[in-house]
């Protein structure tokens, strides 16, 4: 079976997420993005493919394209046929943040492990004889239920809008295809358009539309999985005060004693209609207190998983402390807030700003939560982050499902290829085939079947006959 994968814990927030992949050679495919740090057998120099059945390892997942690490994870290997599906399988336990999960899934899709269909793990398990015969009906019901849920989802207003948009683009592509097919089927006919430029134009337009939709998934993910905003800073920089302000009640215990918050605290709310989870963290500092040290580690993880990091700087913080603590967090998602502005300005503010700008952090504001000075900056930062995630998207339609995202991205690639085929003079038959496979991709969202539609399009557009 060709390998497929999916998140097997429910979407949304959970401490640890499990991503499963099944199929021939999944371990060797995934090993291309994993550095094994230590196996349960105690080896430190192993590759993922060296694991024995049921053996686990602690390792680091990389994004091969960007060359950076995504998350530290635990991977368990299951040798065929001793797995749930009966095929070779791996299970990746990663951190629960949606950004991390999506990144890992994206990397796996890029490696050619496709998203699983509804009920596919169970179905595969059944087909491989891993489930009891009496379970057959249950399995069939699972598949039926999964697909009817998908159907329900597709009936929502948003899906309807997305489908309409994709359908519009598909219509353009069917138009291009029918121009090509007319040239092929009725070469002697006077309607035969010999207009490659027109076709290329349509293909490029369609590609642009699909690409915009694909880009919108960055927003769509935030909508379905919530935007995670981590509040970071040195001890006693006002993080918990900020969280309590955002929550509207005392979610966190606030004292003047630095290091009061030792665990991460989360609070779900909406900012300008965007679902946001704010995460209050333990202040980042060197500490000998074991419990506090664990809190600091959690702070780092929260920063890593967050879509946006609010980095709080109090008036008394020193330049060195502030700059040391912020290093290691992806600068693009850091927004610096000088807090307690009612208590006076941080004397090193200019120096801090200059150094952090060199690090790549561009956004600095000051705020006083206690006196409610400039507190609206928080919602401004959140909504700006959301807007910029959408990138090129001008269609006001957002892709919410990673399955749709993968299909749209794949369709974009095929349309690029179709243009290249036309321009390279490789023949209309090949070009048509490539456009068809792009339509096969989008058809998995809209439910349109190329072979059923094409002939009708040709007949409705052209006047032909014997």
């Amino acid at each position, binding site marked *: 079976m060709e390998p497929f994968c999916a998140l097997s814990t429910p979407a949304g927030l959970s401490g640890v997420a499990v991503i499963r992949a099944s199929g021939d050679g999944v371990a060797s495919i995934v090993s291309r993005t994993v550095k094994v740090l230590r196996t349960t057998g105690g080896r430190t120099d192993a590759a993922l493919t060296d694991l024995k059945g049921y053996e686990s390892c602690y390792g680091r997942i990389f994004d091969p394209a960007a060359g950076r690490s995504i998350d530290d994870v635990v991977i368990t290997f299951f040798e065929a046929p001793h797995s749930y599906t009966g095929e070779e399988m791996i299970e990746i336990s990663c951190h629960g943040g949606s950004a991390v999960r999506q990144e890992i899934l994206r990397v796996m899709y890029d490696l050619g492990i496709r998203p699983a269909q509804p009920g596919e793990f169970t179905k595969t398990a059944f087909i491989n004889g891993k489930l009891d015969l009496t379970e*057959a009906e249950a399995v069939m019901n699972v598949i039926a239920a999964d*697909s009817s849920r998908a159907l329900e989802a597709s009936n929502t207003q948003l899906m309807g809008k997305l489908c309409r948009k994709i359908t519009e683009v598909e219509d353009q592509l069917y138009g291009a295809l029918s121009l090509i097919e007319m040239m092929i089927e009725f070469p002697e006919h006077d309607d035969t358009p010999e207009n490659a430029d027109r076709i290329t134009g349509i293909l490029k337009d369609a590609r642009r539309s699909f690409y915009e939709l694909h880009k919108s998934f960055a927003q769509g993910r935030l909508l379905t999985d919530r935007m995670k905003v981590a509040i970071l800073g040195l001890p006693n920089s006002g993080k918990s005060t900020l969280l309590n302000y955002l929550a509207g009640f005392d979610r966190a215990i606030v004292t003047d004693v630095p290091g009061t918050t030792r665990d991460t605290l989360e609070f779900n709310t909406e900012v300008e209609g965007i679902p946001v989870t704010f995460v209050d963290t333990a202040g980042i500092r060197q500490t000998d207190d074991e419990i506090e040290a664990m809190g600091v580690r959690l702070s780092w993880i929260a920063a890593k998983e967050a879509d946006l990091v609010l980095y709080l700087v109090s008036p008394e913080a020193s330049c060195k402390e502030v700059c040391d603590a912020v290093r290691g967090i992806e600068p693009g998602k850091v927004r610096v807030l000088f807090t307690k502005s009612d208590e006076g300005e941080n004397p090193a503010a200019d120096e801090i700003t200059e150094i952090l700008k060199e690090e790549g952090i561009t956004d600095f504001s000051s705020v006083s939560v206690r006196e409610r000075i400039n507190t609206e900056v928080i919602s401004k930062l959140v909504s700006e982050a959301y807007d910029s995630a959408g990138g090129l998207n001008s269609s006001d339609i957002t892709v919410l499902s990673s399955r749709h995202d993968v299909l749209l991205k794949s369709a974009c690639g095929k349309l690029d290829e179709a243009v290249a085929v036309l321009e390279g003079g490789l023949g209309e*038959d090949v070009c048509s085939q490539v456009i068809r496979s792009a339509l096969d991709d989008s058809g998995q969202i809209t439910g349109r079947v190329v072979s059923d539609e094409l002939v009708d399009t040709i007949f409705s557009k052209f006047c032909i006959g014997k």
Partner: protein
Amino acid sequence: MNIEQALSEEYAYLAGEYDVAVVGAGHAGCEAAHACAAMGLKTILFTLHLDSLANLPCNPSIGGTAKGQIVREVDALGGVMGKVADECLIQMRMLNRTKGPAVHSPRAQMDRSKYSVTMKGLLEGTEGLDIRQAHVTAVLAKESADGIFAVEGVMTESRAVYKAKAAVVCSGTYMESRTIRGEVIISSGPDGLPRSEGLSASLAGYGIPILRFKTGTPVRVNSGSIDFTKMQRQEGEHDVPLFSFDNEMNGRTVPADQSPCYSVWTTDETREVIHDNMDRSPLYSGIIKGTGPRYCPSIEDKFVKFKDKTRHQIFIEPMGRNTKEMYLQGFSTSLPEDVQVKMVRSLPGLEKAVIQRSAYAIEYDLIEPTTLKPSLESKIVSGLFTAGQINGSSGYEEAAGQGIIAGINAGRYAKGEDAVIIDRSQGYIGVLIDDLVTKGTNEPYRMMTSRAEYRLFLRYDNADLRLTPTGHDVGLIDDERYGRFLRKYDSVKEEYDRLSGTYIGPSDELAAVMAEADSVMPSSGVSLADLIRRPGVSYAMIAPVDKDRPALTEDVIRAVETDIKYEGYLKLEKEKIDRFKKLEKKIIPADTDYQGITGLRLEARQKLDKMRPVNVGQASRISGVSPADISVLLVYLDSRKGGSGV
């Protein structure tokens, strides 16, 4: 009616005993009868009129897009259409030459009467085949199980009863047909020939659903009355391979002396004549009730449906070497005869045209093709096979393609062997039959290349690769021809390997070749195959840098060049085909109770129960059956097998 009842009728007599009886000697019937006889079965072929055997009652041409590929497939299986067409062609052209090898399609003008006589002679000389002019009015069958019948023979109008283990009915447009010209309706077959009466009622008697379609044909004009100087002339081409692989491998080529075709455009006057007389069109007055084909609209249809087009192109094609009759392609109509004269004379060069045959629309009975198995055997009457227009198709080539399959399977049925099924990845014949029997059709079905999802693989040049092994297996391709076929593909492989393994360095000769192809000079050593893969570079062009090139025939070169140039895309197509084949191999047991399968949606249950698909692939193509239903079905099938895995 069973055979006992037939023989008990007044004047009835037993006229003969056969393995297979083929009813109708059009392009489907001729292939079916020839295939059965060539497989060693005692066969009889019935025709309403022996002088109209293998008639071309519409276009005097064979081939064209998708159709040319089908002719080649029929030939690859061991059929006769390609051979006869090669004998009778008076012009040949390769369509889509500039558009990639998958859609290269040969089309040939035929000498119509020669085609009929040549086919008649070929069949008369076929051992084991009797040909008989007779009007078959009933298929005889006995009830074998609950509502299922089994063929016993056929009966003619003159009360002759023929016993047969299997019957192939290829009734074309003849069953209960009527021709229509304006207000004038005549009970007649096409071309003024007698129609078939009673046969469709006989089929309906077994519970086979009968549908009614409509098609049409344009006028024929005497060329002596045409002023060709006002027309565009279209010559034939010489570098086109013949239809038959045998002829091609023997080095035969198209004749040097070819007849031209011509083209003109309709005028404002044409449009006015049609508009002024639309009230007399049977299509618009409601006289015609049969469903006509969208791809072949009458000229009045074109003006009505495409209002913004003020003119249409008409082709004038010769009907043969020894006749002055010319066919007006694109000018089909069912308007009255007196209007037809005015319409024809409105065309440039045809102002003084003398019409020899008038145009007409024709309505005819056919059967619901979804009552057929992919073998073309009826699900209702076992041993009864149907092919051609009776199954809802249109076109000589589509008929021949079904005819040879119906013939092969009728023969195998008579011998007690399993049916042979050509699937969608093997040929246009497979696409055609699968579409008809799985989806049905609500208009005469014309094959088009865009209906084939594996078009890059279903090419004119490789039809032998796809189907000749099947032809050999069933006994239609002899060992001698099969051996030549194997040797051809051995040389294809050898040459492919040689081109892939031969590397050449930069040279002045290579620079010249690259300049000619407008391609960048390779910076280091490059294989000959890599060069051919470049846009604008061909096998022929690189001859100057390929010194040790062996002498190869055109067909081998064409195959190698295509394999190399399209390698990446063919590989992708192959993967798609492999996935497709997996589902085709999952057989659904005939006794499957869809009502009892948990998880199937109601619509899917009903559709599957009605259609009884033979495998999961076919089930997946039934409209109203979703991918989730297919998953459920797969699990169900597996649990029946005992969960033993796939």
